[in-house]
């Protein structure tokens, strides 16, 4: 945190901040829709609504924290600050799992979207071609990140703008010309899933709302983040929720433009395209857009390309995010210093990039094995009830997100109690005023509701996903073991935290963000608090 360190330039505008978040979170529905329809069937809209309401709570929590602590570390930094080193590590490690899975899942789904126009890329028919393409994309993203090429903010903003317009037009044409409320009611009556499948679908629905780390990432590079971030975040959160609930309602209640039939010639509903079909699960929006009257004639050609680009940008944010979080954790002495190593020529955290891209490639092999090898298929059928690649990735993604978000809610509560001095320009509504250690604080009710919601999704994931149940906790346990080894080697406390000077850190953060009024307010709050303490001493 020394002022001598080079800092990120704060040049992101409100639209840049929105498009940054949108490119990350907005891509999720491109994967989430097909997966949720496959499991939650006639209750998919409810699965999205439940996960969406939890996501609104998470989004509000991130908005408050990112505006109060505008640093790029995101969830990991908030938990480190609120709960200490150990939990900061666990949350950061869960976020690293998410970013790693993000790389594989989004690269995988990007190829799925392309397969809508290029059938030789279909995973079920040409598994080796599909695998090679996904692996190639991971390698390409790795190379681009080591060299230091990131998609420009202008490109990201253009893709986000085209996507927002496109998704809105699909909703408009869909709801105006194809949506029939009686079909929705009929589907919900006839295709309501079992409780187990509904839990499975709900746990997968949360993956449509992952990527809020980008709000913090944007906060680090936005001018006056305390003012800009709340405004853009609220719009981002509601926009994403509208698309998720809108698409799921449309998928269940639309009159198809091109009637679908199964192999026996029986008429099919749209949602029936997804159960047990991994190819379709990865490209839900492309299939839906082709069924929208009139607009679908154009959308069926460009939506697969738009989806592939958006998903690739999101996969790239996985590479970028994992390397930066690992770098940040390493500077906080939560991970070994090797993750701080910078490439001599390109000045990028090359070791981190190689490590997490390598892990993403390993995860890809594990996810693709059942398609590539019949023996592996039999083993997966026997031990994991035949979960296919994209579902396996979705499982782990949901586990990582639910774990890290659970910690963020606890950190929000802890920071409201332990750090009431930091000015919060945006505060989650519905708080209980109370006194804690002699200070007036506000206890956030929404954080408690959000925690219950996200924790229930974590439980759903553990109950219903055979691979997620094993691989997710295994990732956390291996991480904790490595953390203990590292901290013991460095003679640092295992469960307790090192000494941190949060006052200086916060001053530095606010000054660096250009929030000088907030910095003055912070200093005044600290002074008043110190005087109160002195006066209270006998």
């Amino acid at each position, binding site marked *: 945190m020394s002022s001598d360190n080079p800092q990120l330039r704060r040049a992101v505008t409100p639209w840049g901040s929105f498009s940054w978040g949108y490119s990350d979170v907005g891509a999720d529905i491109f994967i989430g829709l097909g997966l949720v329809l496959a499991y939650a069937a006639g209750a998919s809209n409810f699965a*999205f609504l439940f996960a969406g309401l939890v996501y609104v709570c998470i989004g509000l929590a991130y908005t408050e924290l990112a505006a109060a602590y505008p640093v790029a570390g995101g969830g990991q930094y908030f938990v480190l600050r609120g709960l200490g080193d150990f939990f900061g590590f666990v949350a950061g490690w869960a976020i690293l799992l998410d970013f790693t899975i993000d790389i594989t899942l989004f690269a995988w789904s990007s190829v799925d979207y392309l397969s809508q126009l290029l059938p030789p890329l279909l995973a079920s028919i040409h598994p080796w071609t599909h695998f090679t393409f996904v692996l190639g994309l991971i390698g390409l993203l790795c190379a681009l990140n080591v060299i230091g090429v990131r998609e420009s903010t202008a490109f990201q903003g253009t893709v986000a703008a085209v996507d927002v317009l496109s998704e809105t037009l699909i909703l408009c044409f869909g709801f105006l010309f194809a949506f029939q409320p009686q079909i929705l009611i009929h589907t919900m009556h006839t295709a309501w899933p079992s409780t187990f499948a509904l839990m499975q679908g709900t746990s997968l629905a949360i993956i449509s709302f992952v990527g809020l780390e980008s709000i913090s990432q944007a906060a680090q590079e936005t001018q006056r983040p305390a003012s800009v971030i709340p405004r853009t975040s609220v*719009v981002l959160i*509601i926009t994403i929720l*509208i698309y998720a609930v809108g698409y799921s309602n449309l998928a269940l209640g639309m009159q198809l433009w091109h009637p679908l039939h199964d192999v026996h010639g029986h008429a099919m509903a749209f949602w029936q395209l997804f159960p047990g079909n991994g190819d379709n699960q990865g490209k839900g929006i492309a299939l839906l857009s082709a069924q929208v009257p009139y607009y679908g004639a154009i959308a069926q050609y460009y939506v697969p390309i738009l989806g592939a680009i958006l998903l690739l940008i999101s996969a790239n944010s996985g590479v970028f995010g994992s390397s930066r979080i690992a770098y940040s954790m390493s500077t906080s002495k939560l991970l070994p210093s090797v993750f701080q190593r910078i490439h001599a020529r390109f000045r990028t955290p090359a070791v981190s990039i190689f490590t997490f891209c390598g892990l993403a490639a390993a995860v890809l092999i594990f996810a693709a094995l059942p398609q590539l090898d019949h023996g592996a298929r039999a083993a997966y059928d026997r031990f994991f009830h035949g979960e296919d690649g994209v579902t396996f990735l979705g499982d782990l993604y949901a586990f990582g997100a639910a774990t890290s978000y659970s910690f963020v809610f606890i950190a929000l509560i802890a920071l409201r109690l332990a750090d009431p001095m930091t000015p919060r320009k945006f505060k989650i509504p519905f708080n209980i005023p109370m006194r804690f250690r002699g200070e007036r604080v506000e206890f956030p009710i929404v954080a408690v509701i959000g925690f219950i919601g996200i924790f229930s999704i974590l439980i759903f994931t553990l109950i219903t996903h055979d691979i997620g149940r094993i691989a997710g906790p295994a990732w956390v346990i291996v991480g904790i073991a490595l953390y203990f080894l590292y901290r013991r080697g460095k003679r640092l406390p295992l469960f307790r935290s090192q000494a941190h000077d949060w006052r200086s850190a916060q001053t530095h953060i606010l000054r660096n963000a250009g929030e000088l009024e907030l910095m003055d307010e912070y200093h005044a709050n600290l002074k008043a608090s110190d005087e109160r303490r002195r006066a209270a001493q006998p």
Partner: protein
Amino acid sequence: MIPLRVAFYVLFVVLGAIILVRMLAYGVRMETLTGIVLGGLLIALGVYRLTQVFRIGASRR
């Protein structure tokens, strides 16, 4: 840009109102709940953004 934004968010409000009316025609019940929420969200976001756009426009004048 401002007329485009206004048109875009008016579209949100109109679409939200249409969805809301069509869903409410079937009554407030579990099957129509997500549609009612969707309509409400579209109207809320549209109105919120229009207010912001008009406020920015007024401050520029």
